[in-house]
């Protein structure tokens, strides 16, 4: 099971089908929530998740594809685009320290 200490997270990738719609929205939300942290939040298509990503965030409906493109990354999959508990938990863990695992 992949896991990463919150201190080692430098880049979060939010992935969606085209990398242009829902991922952009969620990435900008995350960026606001993580303001002040030294963490880069970017959005990409799920077919081209970059190799330097530390954590990948994507909808559960696309998780199977994210696993193919980024098999060894910590993958956070969520159900709701607004206020999903998995995303909230990720933000809290980063802010308070701890281990993020998938």
């Amino acid at each position, binding site marked *: 099971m992949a896991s990463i200490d919150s201190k080692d997270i430098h880049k979060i990738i939010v992935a969606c089908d085209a990398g242009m719609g829902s991922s952009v929205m969620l990435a900008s939300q995350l960026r606001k929530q993580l303001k002040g942290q030294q963490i880069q939040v970017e959005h990409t298509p799920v077919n081209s998740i970059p190799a330097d990503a530390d954590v990948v965030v994507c909808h559960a*409906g*696309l998780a199977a594809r994210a696993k193919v493109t980024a098999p060894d990354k910590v993958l956070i999959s969520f159900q709701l*685009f*607004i206020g999903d508990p998995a995303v909230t938990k990720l933000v809290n863990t980063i802010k308070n320290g701890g281990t993020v695992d*998938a």
Partner: protein
Amino acid sequence: MTEYTPTVQGTGARATIQRFGGHLAGMIMPNIGAFIAWGLITALFIPTGWLPNEDFAKLVDPIIKTLLPILIGYTGGRMVHGQRGAVVGAVATMGVVVGADIPMFLGAMIIGPLAAYILKLVDGFIQDRTRAGFEMLVDNFTAGIVGGGMALVGLKAIGPVVEVVTDWAGDVVAWLVGHNLLPLASILIEPAKVLFLNNAINHGVLGPLGVAEAVKQGKSVLFMLESNPGPGLGLLLAFMFFGPRLLRPSTPAAIIIHFLGGIHEIYFPYVLMKPRLILAVIAGGAAGVLVFIVTGAGLVATPSPGSIFAYIAVTPKGGWFGVLAGILAATVVSFAVASALLGFGRGADDETEETGETSTEPETSSVVKEA
């Protein structure tokens, strides 16, 4: 995993279809800005547009028949083999563009990646066999030869075949419209949409066919089959009034993002957590399509994203009634069916407990277990 959280395991086929569709949509979507430029120029300056202007209208044909297919072929090539793939993809696309009477979107989606793939094979074969100092010479000429050769193949082989296939698909659509069967398309489109095949269907299939129709008839209903924001709006409204209490507060924001922002993905989870609601969006989608056909509505270009603003921007002059009526019909029908399926709020409190369980325990709902 509870019944509210569809499992992500065992969806290999779905992921494969999504991935293939993602490639199709991935060639179109980065270029949507160019499509919008074309749509705006068309809507404004053609003889029947808002500000008819002969000089500006000269832009319409070259953009749709040459620029847009080449952008698609370029992007498709880049997906396969980087910048070199993009260049040969663009050159090869010229082959299908020249001599075709229709916008060669499908042809570009085939030949762009194909030419890039051939160059990739050639590069792999030649790389180890190239003497030091000759790399640039070899690279430039392999790209030139593959690109030029594929342009010839496109002109003589791929172009004519795609033209026949596009004509044939157009006939099928015309037949469906003529027999009032097009609303049945919603039975396929709406479920596929919430499985995240929305871009693949709209940009990979319906868009290219719609453009071919729009060039001939000035507008096409095909742009509206998948992108109608009505069914999703009706569903979200039903959730706002009658959904599980825990979910109600998030729906107004979702409605704004969906209907005004055009990000339809926002409503997919609401269907996925209560799969029977798929009936509501199917009914809404079909009602919308029926109204579009009865009123003869159509758009000049793909409304992307599927926001009401994008719809208004690509509606031809004088066509607003049918377009807005179809969106409204889809909203009302979807809302009515979804409300009924949600029991008009009865039992919402029982369901609060069930959804409450998934919402408060991220472990069960939202973390993908290692397969």
